[in-house]
């Protein structure tokens, strides 16, 4: 196991995370501008709790809402991209460990990835 390989992998992953965050922030910002230019006089208060509307609570709902350029849907899509960033990090690590033929860490990483995908995709 070469340490320099690990270092290069980590640097790549670090950059991946940064790009993911920037990309997600830009999408959230577009949604924010859309919301604040079009609907800025809507009342805003979050003192009493009602679960966010159904459209903003599932992967398919968010994508559909963003596709029809619903401002809150665009924001939610940005937040989903943000959530996907560390998941992508784990997926890339899995590939890297597989290329290094590191069986223990292929299994470890696959377990982590499985847990993340289960939590994101499974409707609780």
């Amino acid at each position, binding site marked *: 196991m070469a340490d320099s390989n690990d270092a290069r992998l980590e640097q790549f*992953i670090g950059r991946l995370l*940064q790009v993911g965050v920037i990309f997600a922030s830009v999408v959230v910002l577009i*949604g924010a501008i859309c919301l604040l230019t079009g609907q*800025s006089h809507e009342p805003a208060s*979050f003192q009493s709790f009602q679960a966010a509307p159904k459209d903003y609570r599932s992967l398919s709902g968010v994508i559909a809402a963003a596709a029809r350029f619903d401002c*809150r849907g665009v924001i939610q899509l940005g937040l989903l991209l*943000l959530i996907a960033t560390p998941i992508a990090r784990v997926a890339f690590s899995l590939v890297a460990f597989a290329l290094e033929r590191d069986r223990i*860490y292929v299994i470890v990483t696959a377990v982590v990835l499985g847990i*993340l995908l289960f939590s994101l995709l499974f409707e609780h």
Partner: protein
Amino acid sequence: MTLAQFAPIVFGISAVAGFLGALTGLGGGVVITPALTLLLGVDIRYAIGASLVSVIATSSGAAAAYVREGFSNIRIGMFLEIATTIGAIVGATLAAKTPTSALAIIFGFVLLHAAWESSKQPPRNSRSGPPDRLAATLKLDGSYPADGGIKQYSVTRVKAGFGLMFIAGAVSGLLGIGSGALKVIAMDRAMRIPFKVSTTTSNFMIGVTAAASAGIYLHRGWVEPTLAMPVMLGVLSGSMLGARQLIAARPKVLRRIFGVVVAIMAVEMILNGFRGKI
């Protein structure tokens, strides 16, 4: 309040929380929920959802800088993420069944603990414990750049660290915070990983841990886009500024003042929880 008034206020509060969170090492997430609930009366479930999302942003945003320095240990992080992600799912599931007043009280105590931990000086000497066979099998031992070359370290008490990480993950999922303080305790005290490696690897793990409960929060409707938007953008810009400031100087006085503010917020959360106001 209209959206045009609400969004800038939340952005401002979040930016300050992110700035001070980065400066003190507490993290923005642990401050933003009490700030939103105590100052604006936001329902704690919305606050937790928005805070969790911003935790992913700050963790991932800072990771690149840490990685470049070569301190974080990707194997330790990945192995312990099994414990933190399972813990996060358990915590996020429990959060739905916990009364909001109880969430506020637990939050207050976790906040007090985090403030206490961050006020202490980081340990200087690196000391290794007894050799651990599990650490050898998992190839957890590593090295990091120290003054005068590369320093080797070995990892010990892997099982205890794994168990503590499960708890850290559960707290993260329950309260929508990064629980960096608990992660560092598991790595630094139990597993005897050098402090710098512990803190940077912990930061690395926070995003993955938070992503595990974010899906559950999203499905449950705790992630409200109108609130999460200014929180996420605010915390991210504040913490980026704070991280830059941190490199320039170690602001001791500011740290101490902030520690007092955090302690007051923690007590307020606990009192409001007991009075049933949250």
